């Protein structure tokens, strides 16, 4: 918990090496910390600041701008229900209401067992597929109340782990950098040298 582990530090250096300037790796590294712990702790931000030669407040400054970064623990499953305009017209409000009942939560709250956090969110780019929600940013299009209940039951029983990784894990496919193919000329001639 907290600081990035050895494996993630190695990954962090690989990511940093891809950008002409190190600070560009900040958001990717915050994602890495969130993937490791499920949220972004102060210790993680301090460690990232060290890795990028920034101050901790610079890291916090960026981190706090972006909604996906959680600076306190959240549920293992983030249930995000869209109620933006297209979904409102397509049953998003009713879907949210059903999720509230099914989980016994109001938006923003987490179940006592730490399993679910429910959120009401703006457009998730599935507007023609209303009503829709995401669980840890995995999509469920045109979902019915019955399907919602079955989904939550499965997750409570520890199922669907292949489909929905725990909160923090965004992508399970990383860009691989083969030094043989990586040209790395992009940063050449920049006024500020790579640190």
């Amino acid at each position, binding site marked *: 918990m907290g600081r990035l582990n050895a494996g993630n530090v190695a990954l962090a250096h690989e990511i940093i090496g891809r950008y002409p300037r190190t600070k560009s790796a900040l958001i990717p590294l915050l994602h890495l910390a969130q993937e490791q712990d499920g949220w972004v702790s102060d210790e993680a931000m301090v460690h990232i600041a060290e890795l990028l030669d920034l101050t901790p407040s610079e890291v916090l400054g960026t981190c706090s701008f*972006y909604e996906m970064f959680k600076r306190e623990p959240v549920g293992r499953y983030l249930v995000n229900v869209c109620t933006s305009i297209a979904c409102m017209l397509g049953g998003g409000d009713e879907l949210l209401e059903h999720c509230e009942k099914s989980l016994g939560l109001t938006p923003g709250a987490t179940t006592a067992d730490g399993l679910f956090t429910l959120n009401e969110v703006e457009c998730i780019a599935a507007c023609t597929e209303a009503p829709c929600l995401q669980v840890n940013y995995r999509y469920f299009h045109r979902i019915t109340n019955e399907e919602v209940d079955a989904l939550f039951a499965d997750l409570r029983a520890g199922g669907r782990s292949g489909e929905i990784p725990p909160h923090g894990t965004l992508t399970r496919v990383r*860009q691989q950098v083969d030094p043989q193919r990586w040209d790395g000329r992009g940063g050449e001639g920049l006024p500020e040298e790579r640190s």
Partner: protein
Amino acid sequence: MAVTDAPKLITARFDQEDAHTLAGYESSGGYTALRKALGSAPDAVLAEVKAANIQGRGGAGFPAGTKWGFLPPDVSPRYLVVNGDESEPGTYKDRLLLERDPHQLIEGVLIASYAIAANQAFIYIRGEMPFAHERVAAALNEAYAAGYIGRDIMGSGWSLDVVLHWGAGAYIVGEETALIESLEGNRGMPRLKPPFFPAVKGLYMQPTIVNNVETLSNVPWIVNNGGAAFAALGTDESAGTRIFALSGHVRRPGVYEVEMGKTTFRDLIEAPVYGGGIRNGRGLKAFIPGGASAPWFYEEHLDLPLSKATVDKAGSMLGSGAVVVMDETTCPVRAALRVVRFFAHESCGKCTPCREGTNWLEKIMHRIEEGTGRADDLDLLLDVSDNLSPGIAWPPRQTTICPLGPSAVSPVASSIRRFRDDYVAHIDQGRCTHD
């Protein structure tokens, strides 16, 4: 009705199961355009894209070829940045292009980078789309391994690195200068233009082209078939095809690639192959023609063609290709409030009129919808709107660093102008009259 038989340029592989793999993409003509482009001079490729007359698909509709031509010669490094931040309510197309045909975008990125003599490109994908991210990462890995990206591509002597980058939840990052700030690791707040036009002072203050996912996904087709063939589709003013996300109260909500200029809103909403008409045989109340920022359209606009110039002239915009349909039972106050809520939530806070104004609009709209509105609230709404967007004109006169602030005025002004009686009824009766 004009449901034209124009070919599908960018959604052709949407039904091909394995299109996201290199083998699948190449089996249906993939990477032939790259080979062709590398066999000619960068200027010749640029000339084809200019001849295609393709307007950017991210919202502003600026011609891509013209934009590429703005780069100052001989300044390097220079960058290409792909805008995959799709998050304007109603908009759903870039995510599909990323998930279903990632190599098509990558090929477009390669060709565009070659044409503008860039050696590094960044694909910025909205953070809330991990599946799109996985698909693009896998495709990039394959393309690197095949020698299509990286050092000395296909023996041409030209090299390109492509970096996959991901956001972390902020709509405003879709604005191109905010996207650049975010890519530099900063809070995603827009920069003042001028002087920060990306083509001149962009990423790391170097010349940078920012293009939308859909714009670049068209480039392989343009190179394969020629700019003239693209320009022959649609009309002189709005060339090619475009993806529209049709949502709301239609029988068949969906994502449809249609020919621009010749297809009308009525075609899109009513044709059996597209929307199939309003749900439950109801009448139309209003529709949003181009995403949350766009002023609303009504019955009398149905026969307008899907063309930038025509829609601009009629007082709105095609924007991000999002058509949201509301039937006659929709409460206009609630619908407008929902759109305003979005802008209030997404204001980055850099400019006072937007930070304060969008929140005031939301608050006032909210109390009207809840039944606690006051008699002078309509005037107040219009007054706040006027502060955000002087004269409430179209296109808006901006008081802010980016167009987000004035965009919040669109739903408010539209709904008050057209449905004033509904607002008054809410206030007089102290309740939502559509509940």
